[in-house]
Each structure stands twice: as structure tokens, then as C-alpha cells.
């Protein structure tokens, strides 16, 4: 069963435009939600997690339990935001990643 869905494989926005990367999950209870990012030629790293309720590099993500979503947002995209973004869910001893969205910010 697909537990984490990222509907967009590719997303392009212009520099300075708002960006939203979508993530939906299918799990009952209260899983932990994360966004991980992989910049070109770098290793996968944490961007932000639901439990911290923080803003990293201008990105925020709100957990909407009613819609089972954890969309990632940034009001003004920068060129350095171009990367692969993965939404992930932690539950019990399991950890599930979505298929990822490749974001390109056009100068």
C-alpha cells in the first residue's frame, strides 16, 4: 500500500515565485512526517520535520491531519533550492519515503 504520495515528479518555478511541493500520506494514527532534500552531488539530508515546527531555509510544512497532507512551501524560491525533495513518514519501526519531486528554480 502506498503510504507516502508525491504527485509531481518534476516541478519548475521561476526565481522569486512561490513554490509548493505536495505530499499526501495514507496512515491512521499519528505518524511523524519529514522532508528530506538531496542537492546535486550531495547526500540525502533532513530539511525539516513536523515535530520541530520549524522553518529551514525559508521552507515550512504544515501537517493537515484532515487532508492527510504535509505540503512543503516557500514564498520566494531561490536558485539554490533546486534539488530533489522527498517526503517521508515514520511509524513504529518503519520509515517510508515518497518517490520524490525534482524542483528546478529558473533564474
Amino acid at each position, binding site marked *: 500500500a502506498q503510504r*507516502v504520495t508525491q504527485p509531481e515528479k518534476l516541478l519548475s518555478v521561476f526565481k522569486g515565485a512561490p513554490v509548493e511541493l505536495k505530499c499526501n500520506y495514507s496512515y491512521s494514527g499519528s*505518524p*511523524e512526517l519529514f522532508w528530506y532534500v538531496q542537492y546535486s552531488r550531495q*547526500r*540525502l*539530508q*533532513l530539511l525539516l*520535520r*513536523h*515535530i520541530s515546527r520549524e522553518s529551514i531555509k525559508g521552507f515550512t510544512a504544515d501537517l493537515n491531519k484532515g487532508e492527510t497532507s504535509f505540503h512543503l512551501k516557500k514564498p520566494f524560491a531561490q536558485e539554490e533550492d533546486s534539488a530533489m525533495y*522527498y517526503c*517521508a513518514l*515514520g*511509524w*513504529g*519501526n*518503519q*520509515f*517510508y*519515503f*515518497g*518517490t*520524490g519531486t525534482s524542483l528546478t528554480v529558473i533564474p
Partner: protein
Amino acid sequence: EAGVAQSPRYKIIEKRQSVAFWCNPISGHATLYWYQQILGQGPKLLIQFQNNGVVDDSQLPKDRFSAERLKGVDSTLKIQPAKLEDSAVYLCASSLNGDRGIVQFFGPGTRLTVL
């Protein structure tokens, strides 16, 4: 602090051969994970260790895959014999503990190509 180390970075083998990957986690991290990432997909958790014990290996194809973490530090993942569909990047990650909200730190991965 040093990050998660993995070796080799690349490996090419023929089907039915054996291969092993090595991972050294961040010092002090009790939990170690092995993931398989097939091209175009997200990482898939294969096995999770807490110190030298297996916490979860429900998605590990045990007929050909095995993993160990004998002294609770380094870990090896082995495939024997390899199949074409095993071609993927194998990622190792570690975390302080196994809490589901904990941050995982990833290694650079080993890219395996099975011909």
C-alpha cells in the same frame, strides 16, 4: 563530526555473483538503517539495527540479502546471489536512537549495477 561512511561507492557485478557493502555510522549513534533506492523511486527501508540487534527486517529479501552489525558499530549488507533487479543505490543511515521522530543521517550510498 564525521558523517556516515560507506564503501565501495560503486560496484559492478554480473548476476549470480555476490557483493558486500560496508557502513560506518556516526560515532555514538545506536541505530543503523540500510535502504535500497531503485532509480526513480524513493529509498526503501530494508533493515534497522538498534546497537547489534535487528529491530525490523520485514522488507529484507532474506533468501538473498543478509546484514549484520556484530559489535554494534559497523555494518555490512550482503547480496548472494545478485539479480538484475538488485541494481540500485544502497544507502546507509544512522541516528542517535530509533524514535520515529528522530533525524537520520545518510551516507553517500553505494551504486550497484548488476549485469
